[in-house]
């Protein structure tokens, strides 16, 4: 009897988490969908004219900005993270790795506003003085995000590499392959599903990050033509304008949230599919 009650309580708690997610999704869609229908899906997604107080709701430039910033973060962040993961698993002593891995994971615990502040104080002036432009830019956001996704990608990649059976490595070395050949032809290949999952989860984090980005991105509405141009990703748009938004403007910000929601859903689902498919192979 007692066990039954505890079982029910645990189930209630588990459902409440799903319930919260469901309520949130319903609320966002309920608030945002009417404005999408009002201006038309095509106009909303593919027009770059955003002047919500004057009746223009096009978020194309923000979608482009979000994608550029995320891709930029991956271009900078993935090689760094992979190098980190390979070094820690293959080239340093296990005991040292056990110290270094938690240290890198600690990076994930730093509040994003701190990253943003460091970006504004250190990175932005460097870019402005040495590369030109206003400093607040696509490049600055990408670099900050690259550092922020580093712990996610590194840590999951390490786990994936460690999961590769030791016999693979022994076999490869026994066949006469060098250490480096073994790493990139055997170990990375065997761990690729885990690594791809790590990258996709990192992407999700990059596209959803708000505070750090709003501080260094410059938030201009123009579609960027160079890495030194300021950008306004989807998340920044919501956080930037929610303070005074009312009526259709507020609804349009919720609609921006829907687009973001869909993006992150796509990322997570594809991460799941890729993991499953390669596990089967």
């Amino acid at each position, binding site marked *: 009897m007692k066990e039954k009650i505890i079982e029910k309580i645990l189930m*209630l708690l588990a459902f409440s988490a799903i319930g919260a997610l469901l309520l949130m999704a319903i609320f966002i869609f309920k608030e945002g969908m009417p404005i999408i229908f009002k201006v038309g899906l095509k106009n909303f997604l593919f027009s770059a004219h955003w*002047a919500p*107080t004057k009746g223009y709701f096009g978020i194309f430039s923000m979608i482009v900005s979000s994608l550029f910033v995320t891709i930029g973060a991956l271009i900078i962040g993935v090689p760094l993270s992979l190098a980190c993961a390979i070094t820690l698993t293959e080239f340093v002593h296990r005991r040292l790795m056990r110290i270094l891995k938690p240290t890198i994971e600690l990076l994930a615990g730093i509040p994003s506003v701190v990253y943003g502040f460091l970006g504004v104080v250190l990175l932005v002036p460097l870019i402005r003085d040495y590369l030109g432009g*206003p*400093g607040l830019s696509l490049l600055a956001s990408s670099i900050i995000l690259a550092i922020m996704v580093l712990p996610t990608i590194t840590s999951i990649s390490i786990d994936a590499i460690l999961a590769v059976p030791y016999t693979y490595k022994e076999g490869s070395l026994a066949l006469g392959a060098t250490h480096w050949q073994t790493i990139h032809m055997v170990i990375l290949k065997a761990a690729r599903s885990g690594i791809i999952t790590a990258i996709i989860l990192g992407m999700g984090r990059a596209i959803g990050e708000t505070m750090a980005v709003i501080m260094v991105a410059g938030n201009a509405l123009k579609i960027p033509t160079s890495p030194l141009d300021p950008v306004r990703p989807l998340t920044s748009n919501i956080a930037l304008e929610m*303070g*005074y938004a*009312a009526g259709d403007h507020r609804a349009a910000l919720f609609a921006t949230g829907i687009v973001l929601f869909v993006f992150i859903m796509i990322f997570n689902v594809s991460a799941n599919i890729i993991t499953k498919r390669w596990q089967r192979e």
Partner: protein
Amino acid sequence: MIWFFRSFLIVLSLIVLFGCRPSGKEGVVITVAGSTSVQPFAEKLAEIYMEHHRSLIINVQGGGSTAGIRSVRGDAADIGSSSRDLREDEKDLRETVIAWDGIAIIVHPKNNIHNLNLTQLRDIFAGKIKYWSELGWVHKSIHFVTREEGSGTRCAFEEMVMHDVPISDEALVQDSSGSVREIVAHDPHAIGYISYGIVDKRVNALSIDGVELNLRTIKEKKYEITRPFLFVTKEEPHGLVRDFIDFLLSSEGQRILEMEGLVGVR
């Protein structure tokens, strides 16, 4: 499953019941609604006023000048706050100027330019003047910083400087006057606009059409980008509303407003 939803509903209704209960303080309520630029000042004053008048509750809301004026007409609010002059069709309402605010055009202290006219300013923010050299300084692109859509300061700037010309897409956008000032204080080639009250030594405020920005030029309305902060009532204010407005206009109320960075009316 039904069991689960039932307990969920009970919990939810309990939260709603207890979460939304008024705090039990009984009293008369005055509602002030309108401009988001006036809101922080009105909140501050209401807070101080309520300390002296325990039985009174002053409820300050945003929504924008136009919405505030409309809600006074519809009796949804006792006082409407506005950060722009009343339009022709709003003139039947009673207005009281509680303070003045000048919008400062700020640049980096290293900037050689000390004066602009309104047309030049409009062209900068419209993206027509792209380089400082066009204004007689170095050949560097102008980084112009604006506020986010919906901000009261932006609205006033659009009305008084831009007229019907839209602000260019290339503008950097920041969501507070503080961060606009921060950018301009660090970037030698930036220009931005903020309320007079928060200009400090790290930035230079430009003269407009040769008129320097200071307390006197704002008070005399010589400085062109000056806006009034109005309290609007449906009829001549009386009773508690009258008392509150009198408090704003008293030397104590005005002193508080000036301390917060506005220019008093006395």
